[in-house]
């Protein structure tokens, strides 16, 4: 039973909606810059890909109160865009679900609360911790979207929103929902910035995924959602669906809490699992939106796994994290949106700042924007801490 993609929504360091993101991708304009909104001690050293709107601007855009977590604000912008894009007539009788993902919930507020609280446990504004839980963020957004039938949240580090997307698809396949808004969100926080800083994998310059001399990743923020619908609902919409979610798989690297195995076992299993479900041979994949964080470890593990599965001529590949930074709980959602755009428009986005291809790999990601190409199947990879690896495949409907 096919599951169709009927709507897209995105907000990231390169644009506040899908059209703006697409424009930046076409113009090779990345969003990595010195911090403006995040108040961190590292502001002069570590560039990030912030959404270029303040919390009050986001509050105005969404109609939510300004004191709400930035993660919820970002989530609502993109989820609402996706929902409207799907063009479901109002009052349409169907079971709606919202399956979202994030990595640290309302941490941006909790970390504001914490200094006063740490000094005196009776101090600090409680309204800053009421949305600390990951699920609390999803519920704020679900409420605004009017979704009550089914609301859930997944958190598997950097693969979170890829898992949310395919859990959503499975709700439809198992006849538990008709329409699912699925994806993920994360705002930048001092907590995650400092966490990644202790791992010494943050690049002090704009990152260079899949480059021989890559130095690490840049963190980013944003949200990305797609609207999945059953075949029955797709037939009732006025517009043609944008794509089919034809394959997906989740596997575990089971090698180390943070590091990927040298042969990329988890990534290998996720990609081959997704191919198997889609009933595709590796050579039928036209483009891979790489996880491609820019760390030594990820890129060699992912590259090695790709080398094990695919052969010359390799599919086109690129990491759009060279534009948006690594948006953690949002990246699987954002990159799913980018993958569908690629399929829809016959375009492939460049892997920016790639100067020296990795010497271990027999392929090189795309370095210039490409248009006018016929794409049938696009793969999107999301791999994370704890060995959690997921791959999605979108196909022309």
């Amino acid at each position, binding site marked *: 039973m096919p599951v169709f993609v009927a709507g897209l929504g995105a907000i990231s360091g390169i644009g506040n909606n899908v059209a703006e993101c697409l424009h930046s991708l076409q113009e090779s304009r990345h969003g990595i810059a010195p911090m403006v909104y995040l108040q961190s001690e590292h502001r002069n050293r570590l560039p990030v890909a912030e959404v270029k709107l303040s919390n009050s601007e986001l509050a105005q855009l969404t109609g939510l109160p300004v004191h709400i977590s930035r993660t919820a604000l970002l989530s609502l912008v993109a989820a609402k865009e996706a929902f409207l894009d799907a063009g479901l007539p109002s009052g349409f009788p169907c079971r709606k679900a919202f399956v979202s993902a994030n990595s640290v919930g309302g941490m941006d507020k909790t970390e504001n609360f914490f200094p006063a609280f740490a000094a005196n446990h009776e101090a600090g504004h409680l309204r800053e911790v009421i949305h600390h839980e990951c699920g609390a963020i999803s519920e704020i957004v679900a409420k605004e979207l009017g979704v009550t039938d089914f609301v859930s949240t997944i958190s598997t580090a950097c693969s979170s929103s890829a898992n949310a997307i395919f859990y959503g698809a499975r709700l439809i396949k198992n006849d538990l929902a008709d329409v699912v808004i699925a994806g993920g969100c994360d705002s930048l926080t001092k907590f995650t910035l400092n966490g990644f800083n*202790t*791992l*010494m994998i943050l690049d002090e310059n704009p990152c260079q995924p899949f480059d021989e001399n890559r130095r690490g990743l840049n963190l980013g923020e944003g949200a990305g959602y797609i609207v999945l619908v059953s075949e029955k609902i797709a037939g009732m919409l006025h517009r043609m669906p944008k794509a089919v979610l034809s394959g997906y798989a989740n596997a575990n690297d089971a090698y*180390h*809490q*943070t*590091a990927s195995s040298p042969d990329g076992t988890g990534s290998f299993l996720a990609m081959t699992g997704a191919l198997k479900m889609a009933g595709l041979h590796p050579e039928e994949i036209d483009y891979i939106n790489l996880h491609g964080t820019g760390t030594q470890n990820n890129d060699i593990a992912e590259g090695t796994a790709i080398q094990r599965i695919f052969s010359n001529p390799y599919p086109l590949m690129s990491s759009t994290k060279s534009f948006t930074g690594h948006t953690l709980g949002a990246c699987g959602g954002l990159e799913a949106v980018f993958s569908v755009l690629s399929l829809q428009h016959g375009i492939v986005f460049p892997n920016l700042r790639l100067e020296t291809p990795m010497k271990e790999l027999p392929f090189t990601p795309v370095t210039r924007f490409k248009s006018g190409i016929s794409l049938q199947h696009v793969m999107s990879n999301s791999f994370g801490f704890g060995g959690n690896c997921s791959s999605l495949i979108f196909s022309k409907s």
Partner: protein
Amino acid sequence: MVMEKLMEDLKTQIVEQLNLQDVKPGDIGNDDPLFNEGLGLDSIDALELIVLLQQHYNIKLLNAEEGPKVFYSVRSMAEYITTHQKANP
């Protein structure tokens, strides 16, 4: 003597920082490998040790690739500390 004392201190600090179970500072030999087949430390421990050097000895290891050499054993750590403390009094 100074070197011996430094190595003893390091062993205590390593056991504490890495929360090693069932390992007492005295169990670690000066030249025992800390990683892999030795104490079995991994890449996360290497990052913990970098902070240990910073906190206790005010030495900043800028290049993570130096890690394996510096953290080979308690002696190699002590030698690194001695050299770098001399260089930056």
